[in-house]
């Protein structure tokens, strides 16, 4: 399989008044061409920062990025800002969690949508607007001509998310980052948007990175999954393999703690006690050690490396599930 993007040993540090905060540490990720890769994690796990850093969208004097990112055969980390910018839109595109804040409130939908067509693809105004209307119907917006003249605040959440998708795919990107694209939406609308994304990906032959906290979304819409915890990838496999053969206690705890529509009513939920470790002052061993019910002394003392369970299933645990070890009482 061709690689669309390959992220190697990515670190992101933020300088804060409280010290250096390492939001992403040593992330390696392969995004095969045409595939859909899910990145799962709680808030603060570094999933969004990792993706924005990979794209080169993090700027500011307090951000430090290390590692290599190769996109479509070009090494982004060795390019100037200007060169990276030329990859945006036509190469990489992004959609955001909250469609309320990700569309410019003071500009018409038509202007926002045709802007990149004109600037990136060199279309004239008329052609760009015509193409914009086509894009809007591609994302199933009824009456696209009227939509072009509207402002974002006049649309419902689902419609805004569709507009944002239309903007993201307007220059035929090869890789789409979708950062929690449905979290702000109602369940029935969420299902529509996820289905739309899957269809667009198939029709336009895009690769996609789907960032989410919802294992349910990942299960149905991705080919590969990477689970992130405290800035690290802790488990990574094909979606089928991951759900069939979980290695990482965290992944399983996450799965079990989510209320499931198929559980019996009144059934008690399994709980992950505690919280994410303080990102400024991380424990020296495994990041999950204080919350893990299988934790041993070794987990406190030594940071586990990424291990391979075969067929590309990677995990970061000294005592993976299936390993015979007494569960802590």
């Amino acid at each position, binding site marked *: 399989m061709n690689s669309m993007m390959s992220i190697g040993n990515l670190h992101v540090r933020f300088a804060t008044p409280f010290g250096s905060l390492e939001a992403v540490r040593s992330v390696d990720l392969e995004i095969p061409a045409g595939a859909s890769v899910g990145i799962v994690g709680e808030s603060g796990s570094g999933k969004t920062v990792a993706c924005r850093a990979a794209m080169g969208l993090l700027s500011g004097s307090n951000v430090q990025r290390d590692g290599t990112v190769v996109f479509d055969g070009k090494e982004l980390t060795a390019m100037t800002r200007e060169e990276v910018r030329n990859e945006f839109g036509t190469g990489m595109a992004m959609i955001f969690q909250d469609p309320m804040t990700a569309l410019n*409130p003071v500009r018409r939908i038509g202007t926002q949508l045709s802007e990149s067509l004109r600037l*990136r693809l060199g279309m004239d105004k008329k052609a760009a607007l015509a193409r914009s209307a086509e894009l809007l119907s591609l994302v199933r917006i009824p009456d696209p001509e009227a939509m072009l003249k509207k402002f974002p605040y006049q649309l419902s959440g689902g419609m805004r998310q569709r507009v944002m998708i239309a903007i993201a795919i307007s220059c035929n990107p090869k890789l789409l980052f979708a950062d929690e694209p449905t979290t702000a939406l109602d369940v029935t609308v969420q299902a529509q948007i996820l289905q739309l994304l899957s269809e667009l990906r198939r029709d336009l032959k895009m690769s996609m990175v789907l960032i989410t906290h919802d294992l349910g979304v990942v299960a149905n819409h991705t080919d590969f999954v990477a689970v992130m915890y405290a800035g690290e990838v802790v488990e990574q496999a094909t979606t089928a393999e991951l759900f069939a053969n979980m290695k990482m206690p965290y992944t399983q705890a996450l799965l079990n703690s989510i209320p499931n529509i198929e559980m019996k009513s009144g059934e008690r939920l399994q709980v992950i006690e505690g919280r994410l470790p303080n990102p400024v002052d991380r424990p020296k061993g495994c990041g999950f050690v204080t919350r893990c019910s299988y934790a041993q002394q070794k987990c406190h003392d030594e940071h586990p490396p990424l291990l391979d369970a075969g067929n590309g299933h990677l995990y970061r645990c000294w005592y993976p599930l299936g390993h015979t070890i007494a569960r802590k009482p």
Partner: protein
Amino acid sequence: MRGSFWVKRLAQLLITVFGVTFGCSLLVQLLPVSPAEILLPVGSPEERDLLTKEIGLDRGPIGYYAKWLGEFVTGDFGDIYYSGGTEEVSGRLATALPRSLLLMIYTQIVALSIAIPLGVWSAYRVGRRADKVISNTLFTMSSIPNFAIALVLVLIVGVRLQWLPTLDYQPFSAGPWEHAKHMIMPVLSLSVGLVASYTRLLRADMIATLREDYITMAASKGLSDRRVLWRHAFRPSSVTLFTSAALNMGGLIGGAIVVETIFATYGVGFEVFAAISGRQYIALQSMVAIICIFYVLFNLTIDVIAGYVDPRTRDRRINA
């Protein structure tokens, strides 16, 4: 539905004008002595009675106000009384108002054309040395009262260097350079503080806007920084700036009293001051009414501008 907003807004503003002028007329009533006595300190009791009737002071607070209002709306702004005779307020305003308007317009143009690029740029470079230098300098400038700048300018540019005249006003018809020579120092004195406060407002709003997702979205479309700043970030950040600029216009028309006095520009502010110190309360009432009407007009302009700059406010109006 939009119509109903404007009707409501207009009513609000009319209430403001009414409140200000009625408050003014109440102040006249509150004086421990009759204004007639103040205006004609050497007149006979008969002359004073006549004046009391002429002004309408014998009609009680409401009657007096009604009479004043009736005359005001027909363009009769009352008279200024001297020991030797009277002068129409409208005549004085006819000379003073254009001066004040020009002073205000020049000041705003100077202040905004410096503040906008400065604010955008320092927000873009937020936290870096250039931003810190700009912010600190402006902060200091914003704290220095305009009369202090005016006096220092007079001292250095006018008295020591003798580059510019320190007094008087020349209309544009006397030649552009003559006009400009008399305007430069008053405009500078007034605009220094405004540059500082406008830049700070714009910088703060720009910094907030630059953190928004839609700016990252614009950047992820592959647009240049310049385009992102000016096309995407500036407009949504500028509502507070323009609102504040419009609100300042009223203040600049009547409130530049000290600067107008120092440079003998004799605009509306000076006339107001002259009316107060000469105890011309009736003239004062009309002048304050004029200032207030300008304030109200600028307020309406803000609404129009805000609706253009940020379309969301139009919708809020419908739901107001």
